[in-house]
């Protein structure tokens, strides 16, 4: 049982997705428990795997008993065990928190929604765990296609078009990745990551391998919404149904960033990526532009959800920039920022989904007086906002700290300036919402009728509130323990890869 954990991680949610779709015809009430079970098992498996990896080091699982260069291998090291845990935690908590909302929004289509939800997680867990380049493409497409459909289930006026644009961009991205893998296959005759890494060094100077790397990189960057290729992202995430938005927005882009780091560290080598081909400085500058453009575009939005999607664009700039500075400190900062960003984007989207119950829309004006009305929900929104800004006890601060240290080490002073500037812009972004929610009271007829007493406390139901508070605590908790997270898990992997 224990030795089959890596396979069960993907197989259990896959089978439960089919079971749920069957249940949506036979016995509708059992859809939700099945979905919860299908996500709880990967959650516990990923905890166990993290523990195993931590004690024994690297775990390698051969699907069907075929040895690696021929069969597909699932490789788990501390880095992806950590990402696995983040993905499965977010998926599990999000399902609990938004189950009420899902039942309300999709009363007749909830079977399909849950099935897509689980298939999306299958794709993401598979991407993280796989050690095979082509398998990664297939799982990437599983995650993307289910993501398109989940987004398409949103607001009927805008979501289908936004999702269709995402389909076009996403498919171009996946095709570029596939093309890159094709070139790697032509040159090495292998698709297994470990095997490819061993075969590549004599071929580093060939143009085919350089082109392959660039194709893979561009494909992944389209999927992660990196700056010049981000145009699909704001619309797709803004018009997605809110239970899907709080799932897809934190996970998809960050898992893609993980794939990029995986490609750099364990398929190509850092020495190839950072010194053989002279693109690292260019990518870091592009990341700087991404951060600034994301922050400025966020500043120009009145719609809070749209503002948050531009913040994601800017956060992707942090991660890509940190990874491409090319030293161990900045790379650890980038990996830590992947984890932190998953948590804080999740927290902010989840609390926004909960807030939307008591507001008419997502405009900043709709937030007036919300602290009085839903104090706890707003508190979690504030914690996640502070974390995105990077205020010390929350986790956002620590990853930015490592990114800045790494940038100093690597001599990228432009990146530091941009990072600080965008943090300042984030302060404006969030404090104008806090101001509206805390100091401004709704003007509508409050004056002549009952006055302020009319603002009744209509707190979010507990089933949403408890996961939300838990996530907010997790943000602070991860922040406090980020030192040991770096020292014990991230640094060993990253420096082993970078040396």
């Amino acid at each position, binding site marked *: 049982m224990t030795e089959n954990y890596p396979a069960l991680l993907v197989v259990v949610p896959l089978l439960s997705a089919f079971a749920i779709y069957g249940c949506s015809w036979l016995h509708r009430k059992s859809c939700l428990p099945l979905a919860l079970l299908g996500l709880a098992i990967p959650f516990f498996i990923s905890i166990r795997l993290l523990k195993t990896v931590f004690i024994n080091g690297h775990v390698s699982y051969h699907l069907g008993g075929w040895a690696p260069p021929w069969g597909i291998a699932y490789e788990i090291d501390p880095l992806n065990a950590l990402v696995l845990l983040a993905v499965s935690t977010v998926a599990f908590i999000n399902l609990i928190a938004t189950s009420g909302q899902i039942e309300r929004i999709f009363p007749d289509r909830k079977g399909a929604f849950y099935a897509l939800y689980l298939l999306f997680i299958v794709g993401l867990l598979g991407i993280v765990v796989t050690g095979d380049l*082509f398998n990664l*493409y*297939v799982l990437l*497409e599983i995650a993307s*296609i289910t993501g*398109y*459909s989940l987004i*398409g289930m949103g607001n*009927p*006026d*805008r979501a*289908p*078009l936004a*999702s*269709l644009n995402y*389909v*076009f961009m996403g*498919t*171009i991205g*996946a*095709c570029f990745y*596939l*093309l890159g893998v*094709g070139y790697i*296959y*032509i040159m090495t005759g292998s698709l297994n990551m470990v095997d490819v890494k061993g075969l590549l060094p004599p071929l580093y100077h060939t143009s085919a391998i350089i082109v392959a790397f660039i194709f893979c990189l561009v494909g992944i960057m389209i999927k992660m919404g990196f700056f010049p290729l981000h145009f699909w992202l704001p619309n797709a995430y803004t018009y997605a149904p809110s239970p899907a938005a709080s799932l897809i927005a934190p996970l998809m882009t960050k898992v893609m960033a993980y794939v990029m780091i995986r490609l750099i560290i364990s398929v190509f080598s850092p020495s190839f990526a950072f010194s053989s081909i002279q693109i690292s400085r260019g990518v870091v500058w592009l990341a700087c532009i991404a951060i600034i453009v994301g922050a400025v575009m966020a500043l120009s939005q009145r719609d809070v959800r749209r503002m948050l999607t531009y913040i994601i664009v800017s956060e992707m700039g942090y991660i890509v920039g940190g990874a491409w500075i090319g030293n161990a400190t900045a790379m650890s900062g980038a990996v830590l920022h992947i984890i932190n960003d998953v948590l804080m984007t999740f927290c902010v989207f989840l609390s926004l989904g909960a807030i939307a119950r008591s507001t008419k829309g997502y405009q900043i004006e709709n937030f007036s007086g919300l602290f009085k009305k839903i104090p706890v929900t707003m508190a979690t929104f504030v914690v996640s906002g502070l974390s995105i800004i990077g205020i010390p006890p929350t986790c956002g601060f620590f990853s930015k700290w490592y990114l800045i240290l790494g940038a100093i080490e690597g001599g990228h002073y432009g990146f530091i300036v941009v990072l600080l500037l965008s943090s300042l812009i984030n302060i404006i972004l969030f404090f104008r919402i806090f101001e509206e929610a805390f100091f401004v009271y709704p003007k509508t007829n409050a004056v002549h009728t009952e006055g302020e007493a009319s603002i009744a406390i209509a707190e979010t139901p507990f089933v949403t509130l408890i996961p939300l508070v838990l996530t907010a605590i997790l943000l602070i908790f991860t922040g406090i323990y980020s030192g040991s997270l770096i020292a014990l898990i991230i640094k060993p992997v990253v420096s082993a890869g970078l040396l």
Partner: protein
Amino acid sequence: MEFLFTHLVAKYNFWLYIVLMMIGLYAMIAKNNLIKKLVGMNIFQTAIILFYVSVGSKKGGTIPIIEHGAGHTPHGIDPAHYVNPLPHVLMLTAIVVSVSTFGVALALAIKIYQRYKTLEEDEILTRIRES
């Protein structure tokens, strides 16, 4: 002339897939009708499938089935005589992926048509701006 032979004629399969890819990309970027864009997307994906298929084939290679199987004395097998089946098998999966992407995209196009009664992108965008 030599360039023509070494780079154009000898590697015509690569040029073919690049041309197909560019046709697909052009349709996705320049066409206004969503269905035409979708067809462009499919051409783009097919170009990559053709690329993989052409990579696996060999001059004079036969289908990769070993004739002298069970019950015979083991023969030495020269892989140069057989077409490489792996890229072809990979492309079976990629075809499935492209079909399902196309399916999802068509479903979205139907939803857009039901809402806006048109599939021309500029008309949809003006409707969105008006509302």
